């Protein structure tokens, strides 16, 4: 496991390139910094400065090597590499509120953008006029979209929203792709069709994730619970309430294992093998055994007096010292990445998960 600190600012979002040698991060402002790995260090090689508002989402398409960024200034830019520099292209997303999240589709011919305008903007490139167009999914969304995830078939899109619902929409754009075959979620998929509306998940739905096959959908909510909807088992819902603080990000690392992380600053592993079998497996952050020197009795009572606790440390005993905001799964066989609010990026090997 390796750890690198990018400075003093919280990292609000990040994205890796295809072979994990470069990372695009935003230190909670309107700029995206791209770092490249040189030996043990990460060196800044590019700075993308087109946005005027705080950057809320970055996604890097591995095959076509394009970066899409979205910000609170209601814009999204697609960046392409030309002559060693990243050149931005404005996307007409037509939203009147901040964008909150953005994700390339699996085939990278379109991307979905969630926003505070209570709609999802699905954007695709139109060759005739050489610009990016967007189509909106509005009904029945009633509040800010907090998270998006694409189904492997490049058509279905899961969205978690602040209106406490988790939904699966069809984002089929007939101009650029063929009609999709039926899936476990449904057969008829015109654009904007709702194939699943999981009502009242208990809290804002912070993150959604499809399983590798696309048949299961996991989401984590602000009520500290993990929910899995299983399309292969007639959309049965399994919910697990946890005793941790709410989680902000969830990811399927394998068809049965889930990773979730959030305000507890520590990733947790869950396993799902069928309806009703969602279980917590373990915490993935093994706390470092700091050698706490023996405290004198005087120190002991002084602590009790001042702080009402006997413990002297101010640090959490996890690797990350602040909330974890997003996770990314790598295509490399055994690495999985995390990132969070207190400027550290951490890579973890998945063989830890298999123990």
């Amino acid at each position, binding site marked *: 496991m390796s750890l690198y600190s990018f400075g003093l600012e919280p990292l609000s979002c990040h994205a890796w390139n295809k072979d994990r040698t470069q990372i695009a991060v935003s230190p909670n402002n309107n700029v995206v910094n791209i770092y490249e790995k040189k030996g043990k260090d990460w060196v800044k090689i590019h700075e993308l400065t087109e946005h005027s508002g705080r950057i809320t989402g970055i996604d890097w398409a591995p095959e076509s090597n394009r970066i899409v960024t979205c910000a609170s200034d209601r814009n999204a830019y697609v960046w392409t590499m030309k002559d060693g520099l990243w050149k931005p292209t404005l996307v007409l997303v037509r939203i009147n509120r901040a964008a909150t999240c953005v994700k390339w589709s699996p085939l990278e011919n379109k991307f979905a953008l969630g926003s505070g305008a*209570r709609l999802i903007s699905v954007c695709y490139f139109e060759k005739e006029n050489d610009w990016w167009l967007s189509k909106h999914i509005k009904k029945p969304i009633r509040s800010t979209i907090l998270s998006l995830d694409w189904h492997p078939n490049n058509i279905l899109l899961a969205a978690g929203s602040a209106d406490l619902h988790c939904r699966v929409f069809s984002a089929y754009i007939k101009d650029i792709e063929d009609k999709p075959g039926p899936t476990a979620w449904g057969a008829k998929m015109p654009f904007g069709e709702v194939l699943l509306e999981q009502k009242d998940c208990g*809290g804002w739905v912070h993150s959604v994730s499809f399983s590798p096959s696309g048949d299961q959908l996991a989401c984590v909510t602000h009520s*500290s619970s993990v929910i899995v909807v299983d399309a292969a088992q007639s959309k049965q819902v399994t919910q697990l*309430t*946890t*005793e941790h603080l709410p989680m902000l990000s969830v990811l399927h690392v394998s068809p049965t294992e889930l990773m979730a992380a959030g305000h507890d600053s520590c990733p947790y592993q869950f396993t799902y093998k069928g309806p009703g079998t969602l279980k917590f497996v373990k915490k993935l952050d093994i706390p470092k055994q700091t050698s706490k020197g023996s405290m004198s009795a005087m120190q002991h009572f002084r602590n009790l007096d001042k702080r009402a606790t006997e413990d002297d440390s101010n640090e959490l005993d996890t690797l990350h010292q602040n909330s974890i905001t997003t996770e990314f799964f790598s295509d490399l066989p055994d690495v999985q990445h995390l990132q969070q609010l207190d400027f550290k990026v951490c890579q973890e090997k998945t063989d830890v998960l298999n123990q």
Partner: protein
Amino acid sequence: MSKNTVSDRFRKVDVDEYDENKFVDEEDGGENQGGPDEAEVDGLLRQYPSATGGPEGLGARERPGGERAELLVVKVLSSFKSSDIEKAVGSLDKAGVDLLMKYIYRGFEKPSDNSSAVLLQWHEKALAVGGVGSIVRVLTARKTV
């Protein structure tokens, strides 16, 4: 011009009320459900003085509404012996612990003579079982008790 010649009544209209995409809280028709029968609960208490039946019994009913229920619950919780609290919490399932936490915090809102001390003991034991997650669920629950 010192006087407005055009009416400004439009400024007092609440435009958000007319927005067709307004977020509407989906409330169940739970407000009219009667609270637990006081006599029945008293009877149960007399039968099983160190009973674990209190919070469970209330949890089994669907979300009793109103202040009566809240006072009742605090009464039941106060009647437990300190040593029995841990066992009682241990006998509840996850949903029961969440419901118990909701009532504990409701009880905190309106403290009476000795209720806070008792409720704090219950809180400590419930926290050990439910963790901070149960408190988060008290805060995020749309249906309050």
